[in-house]
């Protein structure tokens, strides 16, 4: 079941197509003139590898309010590709997968603003007049680049997870307050119309009743590696930042630069759960191991974590219930309650894929970036007649042919349909530009980033130390106002 929430674009294919298309302008040389930059948000992209170049090709390319004026990557080939992609983006060409550039588009791209390229982001911050910085670098570098960008007065888009350490994430929140700028974190599901609709179904319409449990996972069956050009000789500039190309390219697999599956995959879904419950977890249990991909990596290839959220009426995800049984204590029934999130991520079986199952006492919503489905609970529906009801004297039933009714919705679920033709990456960057231009605050702001960082790193700690970790609520408190982490559209 697929909805139209995303363009159903395989990222790998897109990259392939875009790279082929950009091949056309490699020889085109320097752009003779720039497009008018008026009213556009000037962005410098730091980190132009897999995710960074994807943002240029998809999110930024589809956002007319943004012009990419600089790109930065310590690896030369990434830099060169990013410049070409950014020119297409700056020309306002929306590159469709499987589609190369027409001659007209090629000319337009050549004529578009050509961003300057840098090896060192500090040099970029110093020399460029930027409004904002887009960071898609390895996890352990997010903090410093974010802090420096904020200090330089820039708005920041930072890939998830926001930070490598919890304290770093708190520092970012403080720095935002000091500078009056903000950070939008790449928790793109917050900008996905499907997830927003599901949230409204849960919060406003009570479609699934009270959330009683959440089951989420990201299961894949691949080694999660990025290929390396072993023939590449590092030049002197590259060698300033890259000591080992394998570790640079596959930073997700090494503890010095990543926290593994929790910070690179789970964090998206942990964020969604925190958003839907409007709460942060109180404690986490976890286990993990490295069993299958024994290829020199250091991070686990299989993890399981359980988070416990205490829900009170202050949380927007809270829902009171009526007594269903005469055995239930009616006075105690709506006291604060706990919701458990069961989360797993594995790398050698993809059967369950990536989705979140939000389970309520009246139904279930299953969500993934490909689509959403609502399943009502199949239990019998019970309603009361009026006392001494009219049915005692009136016609109770009018008999005729069999009323044929389908219980398809019970068995197969009802698709959650949203009207959207843009990719979620585009939607998040459109809002990024809008919030900068109009003085708004992003939905996936630094407090969202902090929450997700705390969740991911507490889970990491529980796994590493093989114990239950209590999460201190003081981690989210500051002595200054902070943005709302549960904003809706």
């Amino acid at each position: 079941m697929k909805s139209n929430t995303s363009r159903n674009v395989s990222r790998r294919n897109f990259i392939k197509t875009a790279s082929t298309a950009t091949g056309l302008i490699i020889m085109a040389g320097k752009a003779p003139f720039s497009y008018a930059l008026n009213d556009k948000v000037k962005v410098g992209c730091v980190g132009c590898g897999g995710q960074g170049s994807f943002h240029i090709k998809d999110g930024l390319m589809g956002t007319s309010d943004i012009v990419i004026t600089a790109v930065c990557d310590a690896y030369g080939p990434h830099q060169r590709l990013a410049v070409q992609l950014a020119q297409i983006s700056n020309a306002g060409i929306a590159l469709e997968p499987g589609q190369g550039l027409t001659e007209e588009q090629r000319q337009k791209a050549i004529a578009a603003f050509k961003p300057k390229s840098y090896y060192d982001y500090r040099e970029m911050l110093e020399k460029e007049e930027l409004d904002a910085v887009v960071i898609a670098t390895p996890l352990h570098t997010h903090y410093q680049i974010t802090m420096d960008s904020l200090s330089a007065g820039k708005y920041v888009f930072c890939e998830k997870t926001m930070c490598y350490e919890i304290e770093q994430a708190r520092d970012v929140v403080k720095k935002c307050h000091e500078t009056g700028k903000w950070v939008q974190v790449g928790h793109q599901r917050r900008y996905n119309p499907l997830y927003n609709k599901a949230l409204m179904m849960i919060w406003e319409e009570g479609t699934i009743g009270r959330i009683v449990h959440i089951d989420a996972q990201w299961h894949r069956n691949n080694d999660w590696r990025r290929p390396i050009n072993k023939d590449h000789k590092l030049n002197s500039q590259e060698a300033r930042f890259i000591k080992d190309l394998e570790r640079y390219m596959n930073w997700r697999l090494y503890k010095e630069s990543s926290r593994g599956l929790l910070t690179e995959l789970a964090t998206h879904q942990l964020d969604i759960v925190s958003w839907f419950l409007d709460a942060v977890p109180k404690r986490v249990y976890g286990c993990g191991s490295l069993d299958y991909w024994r290829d020199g990596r250091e991070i686990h290839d299989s993890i399981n974590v359980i988070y416990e959220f205490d829900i009170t009426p202050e949380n927007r995800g809270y829902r009171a219930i009526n007594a269903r049984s005469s055995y239930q204590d009616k006075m105690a029934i709506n006291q604060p309650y706990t919701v458990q999130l069961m989360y797993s991520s594995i790398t050698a079986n993809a059967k369950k894929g990536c989705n979140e199952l939000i389970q309520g006492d009246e139904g279930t919503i299953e969500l993934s970036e490909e689509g959403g489905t609502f399943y009502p609970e199949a239990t019998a529906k019970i309603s009361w007649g009026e006392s001494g009801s009219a049915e005692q004297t009136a016609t109770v039933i009018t008999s005729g042919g069999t009323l044929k009714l389908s219980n398809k919705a019970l068995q197969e679920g009802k698709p959650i349909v949203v009207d959207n033709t843009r990719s979620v990456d585009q939607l998040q960057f459109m809002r990024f530009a809008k919030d900068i231009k109009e003085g708004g605050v992003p939905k996936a702001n630094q407090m969202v980033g902090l929450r997700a960082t705390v969740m991911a790193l507490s889970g990491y700690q529980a796994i590493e130390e093989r114990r239950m970790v209590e999460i201190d609520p003081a981690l989210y408190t500051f002595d200054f106002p902070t943005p709302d982490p549960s904003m809706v559209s």
Partner: protein
Amino acid sequence: MKKSLYKIVIYLFFIILSIGGHGEATQSVTVRFFAMGTEFVFIIYPPFDGMLEEDVRNLCEPAITAVNNLEKHISHYLPDNDLARLNQSAGSGVLKVNSDLFEVIRWSKRYWERTDGAFDPSVGPLLDLWGFYRKNKQDIPSDNEISEALKKVGMDKVIINVDEQSVGLTVPEMRLDFGGIGKGLALDRAKAILKEQGIKSGILHAGTSSIVAIGTPPNQAGWKIGIRSPYNKDETIEEFLINDESLSTSSVSEQFLERKGKKYGHIFNPKTGRPVDTNIVSSTVICKTATESDALSTSFFVLGIDKTKEYCKKFPDVKVFLVSEHNNKLDKQYINLKQSEE
């Protein structure tokens, strides 16, 4: 004085106890669930007032489970039950089947015999031939095609062995479909279980065509059941009171197919291999069980008014309301049954 006061207290205590002891709730509760391609509805008066949702669910759960289990065993929509295996095995021996399926086959055979073959759960090949499952068919089947299909129809071609609980369909491509009786059997089972659970008053139905009553509504003579016009779903053409009985209605307007400008109903005469042509447009049967009322309401379409009257002479407990159409006018027949006061 003290003694008489004591007596009054005891007397009052017994009055309260006796009211409580009768115990029926004054408020009805409606339980709805999907089964057998329709919605089952139980409107019941629980044994006492003050029950909450889960208490009612617990009370009804055994009956709901019984309906669901029966569906699993006798539904022809499921690819992996004994009925599917039996239908696939047609013409190639006998199969031991589970007790639910065996029971519905035995009931079917009994009503097939009693109605002289008018009730027949093996008419599937005729429905296929006439295109009920293939709407793109345009022609009326030829006599030859009909006689070929009829070779695969008839409960005489179904052999059963009670001792071994085994069944055999003796002709290849035969198949059984209990859509005409299954809901009735399910309701009878639900009724028996709900009575065991202490329910003395209630009315249960499956998609309105099959209805069973448990007792009567509190302080009433019976449950008032309307009969829908076969041509206008908003019009009630008759009303009957039922007291601990079952009522089933079959209506010709439910499904039909059109061939060369003529409409054919979905009820077939298993003898002729053609849709029934008895002018009956609605058939309602009131009797002891819903299994019986379900089987007979369809059968009387096939049998026509005269043969239905003969049947009801033989089985005076069976009450029938037939509506037939003559020259665009509806004619009502009441057999073992009084016309309601209009």
